[in-house]
């Protein structure tokens, strides 16, 4: 079991993500944020319990549903929010938006919006670590929907074949847009798939932050110490629609309500209180601080700068160096 500090930090990150996402939804309806917006609400326990266990020199590859991941990784919320606003102060200078958050310094390699597209990348990052003798982990997050793509198959095999230190993190929220997993996978036991590539695998309740932390700790150890891939399925659920465009017609409202009963935020808060690690006052103070952080980030983003149009073609290729 985790100690007090670690648990409180997980809870703080979960709360931070939840509130950040809720604020993003508002800002979207106010047209401050545009493009596609995919919220992580309901799934916070996964990123919050895994990412703090990574080292700064480890790498992360994520999907378009990655606000939470980059926040937990430590990229300042200001930079993330400014990105959503399309400002040059954003973590991708306003070029990427919600789906393409990057932070090279923290080895956060996007924000990948082609489903399955991040998996090949993760094998390469791990290959570079391996070839350069660095005991790093590349944590690659993807949804269960991505597993039907050829990229999943090719990447798992390559990682296993070449013993690449990739931690494959499947965020199984049961749906890929409107398609439930049993309508996209002939075999829904995902561990069988991992094993067909000779990759060690485990499943964990993604609504239980402690269980996720435990499973991730083991997984990270295997990847780092034994320099081979590992597949961890985190069973979770998104409480909101797929994106702001999704009318969410394909799920039973009852199903959603059932899952909301498993909401990790109140449950984990109760747990912390029962442990005597958190009281009402501390909880309120934490939330107040988070709200302040969020409002500050909105202000920062609002006041951010639009990149001059003259710079449009900047960053297509690297500025020419002599040669």
């Amino acid at each position, binding site marked *: 079991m985790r100690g007090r500090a670690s648990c409180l930090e997980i809870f703080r990150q979960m709360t931070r993500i939840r509130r950040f996402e809720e604020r993003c939804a508002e800002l979207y309806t106010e047209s401050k944020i*545009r*493009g*596609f917006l995919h919220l992580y609400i309901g799934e916070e326990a996964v990123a919050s319990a895994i990412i703090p266990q990574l080292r700064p020199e480890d790498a992360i590859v994520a999907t378009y549903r990655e606000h939470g991941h980059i926040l937990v990784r430590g990229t300042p919320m200001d930079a993330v929010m400014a*990105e959503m606003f*399309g*400002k040059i102060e954003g973590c*991708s200078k*306003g*070029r*990427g*938006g*919600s*789906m*393409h958050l990057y932070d090279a310094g923290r080895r956060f390699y996007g924000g*990948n*919006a*082609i*489903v*399955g*597209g991040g998996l090949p990348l993760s094998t390469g990052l791990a290959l570079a670590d391996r070839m350069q003798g660095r005991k790093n982990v590349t944590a690659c997050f993807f949804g269960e*929907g*991505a597993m*039907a*793509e*050829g990229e999943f198959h090719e990447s798992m095999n390559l990682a296993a074949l070449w013993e690449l230190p990739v931690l494959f993190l499947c965020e199984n929220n049961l749906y*890929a*847009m*409107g*398609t439930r997993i049993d*309508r*996209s*996978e002939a075999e829904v036991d995902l561990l069988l798939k991992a094993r067909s590539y000779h990759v060690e695998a485990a499943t964990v309740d993604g609504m239980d932050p402690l269980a996720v932390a435990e499973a991730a700790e083991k997984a990270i150890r295997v990847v780092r110490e034994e320099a081979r891939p590992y597949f961890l399925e985190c069973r979770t659920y998104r409480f909101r629609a797929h994106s702001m*465009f*999704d*009318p969410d*017609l*394909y799920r039973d409202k009852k199903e959603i309500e059932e899952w909301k009963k498993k909401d990790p935020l109140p449950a984990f808060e109760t747990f912390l209180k029962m442990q005597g690690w958190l009281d009402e006052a501390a909880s309120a103070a934490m939330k107040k601080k988070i709200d302040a952080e969020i409002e500050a980030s909105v202000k920062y983003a609002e006041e951010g700068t*639009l*990149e001059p*149009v003259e710079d*449009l*073609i900047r960053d*297509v290729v690297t500025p020419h160096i002599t040669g």
Partner: protein
Amino acid sequence: MTSSRPTSPAKKAATTYREALRAAHREALLGDPRVFLMGEDVGRYGGSYAVSLGFLKEFGPERIRDTPLSESAFVGAGIGAALGGMRPIVEVMTVNFSLLCLDQIMNVAATVRHMSGGQLSVPLVVRMATGAGRQLAAQHSHSLEGWYAHIPGLKILTPAVLEDARGMLGSALLDPDPTLIFEHASLYNRTGEIAENAGLVPITGAAVRREGKDLSLVAYGAMLFKALAAADELQKEGIAAEVVDLRVLRPLDTETILKTVRKTGRAVVVDEGWRSGSLSAEISARIMEGAFASLKAPVERVCTVEVPLPYAKHLEDAALPQVETIVAAARKALRHV
């Protein structure tokens, strides 16, 4: 060349581009038991642009098939089903994901007829949303329809007007060869009137959407409407622009293009593809080849700036062809003496 107006006067009804597409699908599904629709989220979700909303209920899961995220397999399955006697409509959610099935499109769909010495045809229809303009950034804003037009064996359609949204699908299904239909995502909500009895339209040939004598604007898809708006602007300055809607990017209707240029002597091609190697280049080259003597000025091209599309709105706007940039190019073409 296809006329832009139906020849017989018919009662008109208000509709949208999406509704026109829906009507086309329903007609096809009702009219031919071999027709079925498959793709990611075409069923329970209702299509990511709501084109097939309600179809699952109406036509059942055998004919409205939600696929896994497996673009290569389900496009290939469409090819196979077409060879097996079906008339599949495969929806690839957007052109951005079609790179994952490009091998099946280029190396199988487009070549089977030829490789088999004409024994087999692939009556497959693939639909995709295309285009930028909604701040979806670099991986979700491609306009590759002109690029696809490079591939022999394919037919490439870009419905812009409501009549074409209504009529092209049915004609494509009658075509024995593989056809790709590109629907610009900004058009789905476009409203207008259409003849109540609107039906199939020819899928050969361009259409003159506006007549004019001073210069020719050649466009397709969503760019047609920017070109028409630019023509309105130019009209205010007394310049009469003719506007051609290409409609079909492969095979290109060179004749209609040359005809307008022979008439006006000046042309601006508007293309949402990145400039270098966009279809606009092919059109420009064909104009030079076929109407060199008529040209009073070099053909101008208004295309997307060569940058992966940025998220920030002001940058995205600056990257895409706009009414003002079309007007500016037209003025430039007119200044040339």
